[in-house]
């Protein structure tokens, strides 16, 4: 039955729902981001809307604010450490789960997921208490390792799903064509997994950079990460400097999205 300009009822409802979701995400995600960015260029020293003028003062202030810069560098370090650890631990785990010939591959792939299911706060508190018991105090390394435990599942899952779609005959062909197991990994498996590893790396980096729930309990006393520093900052000030930090993060997030979408795009070109 045609209902509205030649469309059926299902179509109309479907299009309506899509529009609703689009408006919803626009309002909840994009609009606040735009407002934050607009505020970050405002000339006035307190958060208001609409802005009174344009200035780069707050961005300058961010980079002159010693603690904020240090916090950003700390978060950058955590993000990179988490990414490297997730690649080093996650990729072999995914390989073992999918290609492994031993008992317990299913158990392993479920086990990896568990920390990700636990709320970050619970994990953070648990690490803090357990650390205290064995005499390990919070530090940037404890924070990095805790976030790695929390997020490594994302790397494992991303690589795993790609690996499951790879024809096992490719690796057999490599072996038949004289490749040693190591050569086969280097020339066939890894290049074909690269888009997945890259996508996983972006997700884990963002988590390492941005995580608050685990970080708040595990970060080093003198090495505050950015989210913790920002939390402290908004408690005591309401200057657009916080908005400027958010502006920097939004730019980073967009860059990450571009990396992910082009890496997945490249993936399609060769298949």
């Amino acid at each position, binding site marked *: 039955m045609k209902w509205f300009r030649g469309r059926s009822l299902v179509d109309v409802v479907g299009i309506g729902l899509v529009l609703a979701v689009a408006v919803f995400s626009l309002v909840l995600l994009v609009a606040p981001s735009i407002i934050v960015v607009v505020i970050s260029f405002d000339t006035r020293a307190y958060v208001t809307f609409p802005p009174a003028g344009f200035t780069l003062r707050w961005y300058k202030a961010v980079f002159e604010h010693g603690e904020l810069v240090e916090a950003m560098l700390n978060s950058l370090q955590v993000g990179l450490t988490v990414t490297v650890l997730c690649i080093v631990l996650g990729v072999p785990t995914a390989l073992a789960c999918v290609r492994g010939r031993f008992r317990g591959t299913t158990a392993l792939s479920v086990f990896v997921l568990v920390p990700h299911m636990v709320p970050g706060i619970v994990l953070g508190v648990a690490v803090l208490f357990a650390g205290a018991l064995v005499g390990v105090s919070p530090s940037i390394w404890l924070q990095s390792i805790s976030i790695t435990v929390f997020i490594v599942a994302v790397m494992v899952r991303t690589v795993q799903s790609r690996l499951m779609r790879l024809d096992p*005959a490719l690796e*057999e062909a490599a072996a038949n064509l004289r490749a040693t197991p190591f050569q086969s990994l280097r020339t066939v498996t890894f290049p074909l997994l690269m888009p997945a590893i890259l996508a996983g790396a972006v997700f884990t980096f963002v988590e390492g950079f941005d995580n608050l729930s685990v970080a708040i309990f595990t970060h080093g006393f003198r090495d505050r990460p950015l989210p913790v520093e920002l939390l402290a900052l908004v408690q005591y000030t309401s200057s657009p400097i916080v908005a400027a930090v958010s502006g920097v993060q939004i730019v980073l997030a967009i860059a990450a999205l571009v990396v992910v979408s082009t890496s997945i795009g490249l993936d399609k070109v060769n298949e």
Partner: protein
Amino acid sequence: MMQGPAGPSNTVETTAPVLGIGAVGKRFGATRVLQNFTLEVAEGEIVTLLGPSGCGKTTLLRCVAGFWEPNGGTIEIDGQDIVDVPVNRRPVGVVFQSYALFPHLTVARNVGYALRMRNRPRAEVAQRVASVLETVSLTGFENRYPSQLSGGQQQRVAIARVLVMEPRVLLLDEPFNALDAKLRGAMQVELRQLIKRLGLTSIFVTHDQEEALTMSDRIAVMSGGKIEQVASPDEIFDRPATAYVADFIGVSNFWETQAETGHVRLPDGQTVMTDLTGGVKVMTRPHNLRLGPPEAGPWKGTVSFHRNVGPLIEYHVEASDGNVIRVSAMRQERDRPVKDRSQVSLSVIDPASCSVYPG
């Protein structure tokens, strides 16, 4: 390897099989997939494994290639047992059913892969890749990716990639499955000619009997992990060793009867010599039967169906004993086919071409 004294009189080497599979078994848990499998393939010979789905053809290839380890038995190439040789050191090339081309590498890099893994100098790789691509008529496609090729071209890349390492034994697992029927026929002839020209010792797997008849020097008909018969395509077709082989290859008519001393009486009154006694099964092909007017002989029936298959006309005749017998005759344009539901008599053209099996 056993060898006579060196010199021109040394003929042992040329007659020894290139590939010798001896009593190979393969189990998965409790299921025996291969049992006591024995086969020898001579230099330059193409042997086809033909059998129904699940009879163990792929399993045997995977054991020879080294992807799976057999549970007992020997696999020898040029007299050397290779069961303990790792996959990447076996002088064996595999053409996979899915081709398994590397999607991230160009045609040239796919084809040169084996040489690069062996660290051959660049110039040599380039020269050998070019020459192999010429052999399979793919010159000019060097920089394409597999996804930019047709199915037939992909298959030729898969073959070129294996040829470049000059394997002693070539293994092909249903390499035509991904092609459409017309291309398949052309590629079968092309591939057979190529393999013959290069003199490659090959095992070819298929469950398509026509493909087997086209491609093979010898056919090994398999059933349940064992070989029923190994012989030339003609012999397999004309003299099937067992009722199973007769049934599997081509169209066959069976009837059950009792053997008398030294011979079997056919329904039309003629006799076939046999050493068997008691209950037997007699088999003959449709082209060894002839239709006649109903009063011409004792073996009577009714035509239940006929169809034109190009140069032949094929009849289904319901015999008076209830058997449906298939008869084929050359089709002549001026002849009218025998109409459905007409009464006919059947007779065997050449009784010596009938096969007799234990019942």
